C-alpha cells in the first residue's frame, strides 16, 4: 500500500448512546437492547440527584428522580443497572463528576461482587469538576476539595484500575456554554494542566511513573456545525497536547502523549423548529471528528434529532447509532490514511487556532491557572460574553440557522405529527417508587456497618489519604449516595460558583434595526420607572438541581441591557428560596429556567408558595425544554408565559416581560 493511499481498514471508534432513565431496571433493559443493536460501549446518564449527591427522599430531589438519567442510590441500584452485563466485557462511560469517586466505587464494588478483578475494568469517569463550575453546574464542594477528589480518583486508578480513563477533561460543555474554538482549546488545556499539576503535588506518583498518568488523561470534546473549523480544532488539540505533555511534563513516550478523546456532537445547535433537520446537523458534526485519521475520536455518542423537544425514545437513539454504523462500516472512510496531511487550507486554519489558543492558555496561567480563573470568574465571564455574541448573531440573522431564522416555511413534518408521542415521558410513579425502595434498602441493610463506613469516610476526608478505599468499603456496606455526599459536605462545605453575569460586557450594536429595538425597550422601561417610582425589578430563578445555566444567564444579561434591575441567584435554588428572594427583593416579575424536564413539579410549587406569601399577583414566566402539552397546562394554572428553545428572539421576550410588569402595575 502506498503511504497516502488505501490502507488496512482502521479500527472503528467505540459507539455509544448517552442513556439512562427512570430506574436501574428500565435502564438495564435499554442497555441490553442498545448492545444488541450493535452499540460497542455503554454511556450511563445519571439523574441529577445522583450527580449532585442527594438521595431520592431529599427535598431537593423532588421532581428530578429518574428524569435526565438513572437514579443510583446504592450498590443495589448499581447491581441492577448492570444485571447480566459482565463488567469485564463492558466499556462503560459514566457522566459523573462531583460524585465520581462514589459512582466508580460502586462500579468497582459490583465488579468485585461479580468476581471480576477491578484491574481489567475499562471505561471512563467524566470527573472534570472544574467545568462544572463553568457550565454544567453539578458541583458540590469548593474547588480545593473537588480537585482533591479528582486527584484521588486518578492516583487510585493508575495502579488499581489501569485501563480506566479516570478523567475526561471536558471542552464539550464549554462549547455548550458558548465557547469559541479557541476558548474550547485553551480552557480544556488549562484544566488538564491544573489537574496534572495537582496530581504531581500529591507526591503519590513517582517521577518515573508520571508518564503513565499523563497517558491516562482523556478528553471529551464537542463538535459544532462549522465542521471544517471543528475538524481543524481537533487537529490543533492533537498538536497542543503533544506540546504540553512534552514541554511541561517531559513525557518521552509518544503513546503517552497521544490526545485521546471522546465526542458527543453539539446539542446546543439542535433546533426545535423543523427538528428532522437535526439529523443532517448531527451527521455533519460527526464528520469533523472522524475524517482526520490523525485526530480521530476514540469514542462517539450522538444526540438524537428530537432532543430540543424532550427526552429521546429508543428509536430516536437508534437512528443516531445507525448514522455512526453507516459511516464506520458502510463507507470507505476507515480504509484511508489521513486525508488532510499537507492540505494548505486545513494546516493554515489549524495553525491559527493553535496560536490563538496558546496565547489564551498563557493568559490563564498568568492569572494563576484554571482554578484561580474559575474562582475569580474570569473564564466564566469570557464564556458568557461569547454566548451572548453567538445568540445575537442568530437573532440578527448574521448566523444562518435553517428553519429558524431562514427558510422557515416548510411542509408539516410527519415525524412530529403527534408531538406528545415523539418524545419519551418518564412514569410519574418513578419518584415515589424510588423513595420506597430506598427506605426498604435502609431497613434491610446492616446499619451498624453503614455507620461505621461513614465514620471512616469522615475520618479520611479530614486527612490527605485517598478517598477511594474508604468509598469502596462504604459501597459494600450499603451506604447511599446522599449519605456519602452529606458526610463530605459536613467536612468540606458547599460551593456557589461565580455566575459570570455581573461583569459580563456585551456589545450592543450602535446602530441599525436591532439598536432601535433596544432603544425602544429602554425608553419603555424608563417611562415605566417614572410611573411606578421604582425601576422594574426581575428575579431570574433556576429551581431544581439542573445546572445548565446558559439560558438563565443570557436572559439576565439581556434584561439588564434593556434596563431591568435583575436579581440573579445562580443555580440550584429551591422554590422556598425563590419565594423568599422575591419577597425580600420586592420584585415586579419572576422568570424561572428549567431544562431538566421537572417543570411540572417545580413551577406549580413556586406559584403555590408565592400565593401563600401574598405574592400571588407577581407575574411568573418560565423557560425551558417544555413540551406543548405541559406548556398548555402551565398556562392554565396561571403561568403568564412559557418559553421554549424556539423563542430565540430575546428582544421579543423582553418586550413581553415589560408588558407584564406594565399590566400588573396598571391593575394595582
Amino acid at each position: 500500500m502506498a503511504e497516502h493511499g488505501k490502507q488496512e481498514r482502521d479500527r472503528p471508534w467505540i459507539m455509544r448512546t448517552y442513556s439512562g432513565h427512570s430506574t436501574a431496571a428500565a435502564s438495564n433493559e435499554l442497555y441490553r437492547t442498545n448492545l444488541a443493536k450493535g452499540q460497542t460501549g455503554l454511556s450511563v446518564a445519571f439523574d441529577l440527584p445522583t450527580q449532585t449527591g442527594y438521595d431520592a427522599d431529599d427535598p431537593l430531589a423532588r421532581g428530578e428522580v429518574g428524569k435526565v438519567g438513572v437514579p443510583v442510590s446504592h450498590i443495589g441500584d448499581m447491581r441492577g443497572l448492570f444485571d447480566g452485563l459482565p463488567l469485564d466485557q463492558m466499556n462503560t462511560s459514566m457522566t459523573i463528576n462531583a460524585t465520581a469517586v462514589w459512582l466508580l466505587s460502586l462500579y468497582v464494588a459490583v465488579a468485585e461482587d461479580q468476581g471480576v478483578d477491578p484491574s481489567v475494568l475499562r471505561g471512563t469517569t467524566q470527573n472534570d469538576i472544574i467545568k462544572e463550575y463553568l457550565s454544567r453546574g453539578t458541583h458540590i464542594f469548593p474547588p480545593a476539595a473537588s480537585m482533591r477528589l479528582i486527584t484521588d480518583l486518578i492516583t487510585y486508578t493508575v495502579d488499581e484500575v489501569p485501563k480506566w480513563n479516570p478523567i475526561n477533561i471536558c471542552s464539550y460543555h464549554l462549547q455548550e456554554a458558548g465557547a469559541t474554538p479557541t476558548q474550547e482549546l485553551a480552557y480544556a488545556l488549562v484544566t488538564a494542566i491544573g489537574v496534572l499539576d495537582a496530581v504531581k503535588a500529591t507526591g503519590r506518583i513517582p517521577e518515573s511513573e508520571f508518564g503513565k498518568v499523563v497517558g491516562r488523561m482523556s478528553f471529551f470534546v464537542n463538535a459544532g456545525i462549522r465542521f471544517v473549523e471543528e475538524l481543524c480544532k481537533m487537529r490543533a488539540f492533537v498538536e497542543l497536547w503533544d506540546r504540553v505533555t512534552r514541554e511541561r511534563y517531559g513525557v518521552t513516550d509518544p503513546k503517552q502523549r497521544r490526545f485521546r478523546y471522546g465526542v458527543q456532537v453539539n446539542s446546543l445547535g439542535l433546533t426545535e423548529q423543523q427538528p428532522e433537520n437535526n439529523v443532517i446537523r448531527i451527521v455533519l458534526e460527526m464528520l469533523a471528528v472522524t475524517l482526520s485519521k490523525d485526530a480521530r475520536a476514540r469514542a462517539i455518542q450522538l444526540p438524537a434529532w428530537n432532543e430540543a423537544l424532550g427526552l429521546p425514545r429508543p428509536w430516536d437513539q437508534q437512528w443516531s447509532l445507525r448514522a455512526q454504523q453507516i459511516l464506520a462500516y458502510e463507507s470507505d472512510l476507515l480504509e484511508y490514511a489521513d486525508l488532510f496531511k499537507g492540505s494548505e487550507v486545513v494546516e493554515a486554519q489549524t495553525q491559527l487556532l493553535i496560536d490563538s489558543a496558546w496565547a489564551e492558555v498563557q493568559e490563564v496561567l498568568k492569572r494563576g491557572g484554571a482554578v484561580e480563573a474559575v474562582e475569580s470568574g474570569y473564564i466564566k465571564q469570557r464564556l458568557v460574553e461569547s454566548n451572548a455574541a453567538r445568540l445575537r448573531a442568530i437573532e440578527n440573522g448574521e448566523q444562518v440557522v435553517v428553519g429558524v431564522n431562514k427558510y422557515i416555511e416548510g411542509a408539516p413534518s410527519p415525524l412530529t405529527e403527534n408531538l406528545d408521542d415523539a418524545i419519551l415521558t418518564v412514569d410519574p410513579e418513578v419518584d415515589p417508587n424510588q423513595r420506597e425502595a430506598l427506605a426498604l434498602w435502609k431497613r434491610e441493610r446492616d446499619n451498624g456497618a453503614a455507620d461505621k463506613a461513614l465514620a471512616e469516610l469522615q475520618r479520611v476526608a479530614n486527612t490527605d489519604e485517598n478517598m477511594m478505599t474508604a468509598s469502596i468499603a462504604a459501597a459494600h456496606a450499603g451506604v447511599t449516595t446522599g449519605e456519602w455526599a452529606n458526610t463530605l459536605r459536613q467536612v468540606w462545605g458547599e460551593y456557589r460558583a461565580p455566575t459570570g453575569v455581573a461583569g459580563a460586557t456585551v456589545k450592543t450594536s450602535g446602530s441599525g434595526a436591532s439598536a432601535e429595538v433596544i432603544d425602544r425597550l429602554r425608553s419603555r422601561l424608563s417611562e415605566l420607572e417614572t410611573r411606578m417610582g421604582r425601576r422594574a425589578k426581575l428575579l431570574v430563578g433556576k429551581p431544581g438541581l439542573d445546572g445548565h445555566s446558559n439560558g438563565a444567564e443570557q436572559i439576565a444579561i439581556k434584561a439588564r441591557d434593556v434596563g431591568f434591575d435583575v436579581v440573579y441567584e445562580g443555580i440550584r435554588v429551591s422554590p422556598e428560596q425563590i419565594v423568599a428572594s422575591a419577597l425580600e427583593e420586592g420584585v415586579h416579575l419572576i422568570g424561572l429556567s428549567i431544562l431538566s424536564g421537572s417543570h411540572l413539579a417545580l413551577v406549580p410549587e413556586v406559584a403555590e408558595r408565592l400565593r401563600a406569601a401574598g405574592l400571588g399577583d407577581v407575574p411568573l414566566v418560565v423557560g425551558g425544554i417544555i413540551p406543548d402539552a405541559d406548556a398548555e397546562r402551565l398556562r392554565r394554572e396561571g403561568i403568564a408565559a412559557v418559553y421554549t428553545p424556539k423563542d430565540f428572539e430575546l428582544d421579543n421576550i423582553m418586550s413581553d416581560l415589560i408588558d407584564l410588569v406594565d399590566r400588573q402595575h396598571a391593575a394595582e
Partner: protein
Amino acid sequence: MPPSDPLDDARQVMSADKAAVSRALNLVEDRRSDAHSRVAALLAMLKDAPKAAGGHRVGLTGPPGVGKSTLTSALARSVRKRDRTVGVVAVDPSSIRSGGSLLGDRARMSFDPSDAGLFVRSLATAGEVGGLAYAANSAVRVLAAAYDIVVIETTGVGQSEIDIVHVADTVVLVIQPGSGDVLQFLKAGIMEIPDILVVNKADHDELAQRAIADLRGALRTAHAAGAGGGQDADWETPIIATSATKGTGIDELIDTLDAHRQHLDARLAARRREGEVQWTLDLFSRKHGEHGVATLGGVAQLEARAERDLHGGETPLGLCEHLSREYVSALGRTP
C-alpha cells in the same frame, strides 16, 4: 393597593415582619415626589425603634472581587448563630447606558429561606454613579428598626467609599492579599482609614501574613503622615485575616465588630448625627446644587442648622423638605 396606615406599617417593620419590611423598602426606593413625605413620615416613626438605638450598622467596603458578598454571607450566618438578627443591604452598580443592573450578591450567599431573622435587599446605584444607591441611607434605617445588625455592602468604587462613613457605625475595609493599590492609597492618605481591616481569601498562610505585615506598615505610614485611626484617635485599626469560603476568621471579625460598637457607645449618637447631617446636606445639595447651599447661608451654616434641628428630633428627609421650601421661597424673594 390602597395606602395602608403608616403607623401600622412602622409597627410591623419593628416586629420584623418580612412583607412589611419589604413594602417599607419599596417605599423608600420610590422616587415619585408624592412618596417623599410618606418616606419622611415612615423614617421619623422608625427613628426611635428599640432595635435602631441599640443596633449596629456595619459598612463593608473594598475593591470589586475581594469576596465581599461571600464574606457578608459568612458574617450573617455566624451572627445568626449568636442569636442576633441581620439585615443586609447589598449595593450593585447600574449600567449607565441602560439604567439596568445585575444584582448578583444573592448568588454568592447561601441562607436558610425560612429564617425570619435574616433579610437581604439588593439595591442598584441607579443615578448615583460610583456612590451608594439612592435609597441606601433610608433602607439602612428601615432595616435598623427591624434587625439587630445591619450590614451595608458597597460596590467598593468611587464615592461609595466616602458615603459609607456617613451611613455606618463601623466601616470595614476588605482587601485580598496582593492588593497593592489599597496600600498605596492608604499610605498616600487618599483613602480614609477604616475602623477594621479585613484581609479576605487568606487561604494561603504565607501570602496572608505578608499582606498583614504590609498593611501594618501602611497604617504606620498613614499615622505618621498625620491621619487619624478610623475617625477617632484612641481606636487602633485591627487587621483580621478571613477566608469567607472556609469560614475562618469570621468569629474574630464579629468579636472585633462588637468591640468597636462597645468602644463607640458613648459617642454613637454623635457619630450617627454627624452622618445624618452629611446626609441632609447631600440630599439638599443634590436637589438644589451649590446655589441652593449658598442661598441658605453656605455649608458651615447649613451644617450647624442641621446639627441643631436633627438634635431636636427632625429627620434628614424631613429637614431636607423644609430646607427645600425655604430655598424656593427665598428664590421668590430674589429679583
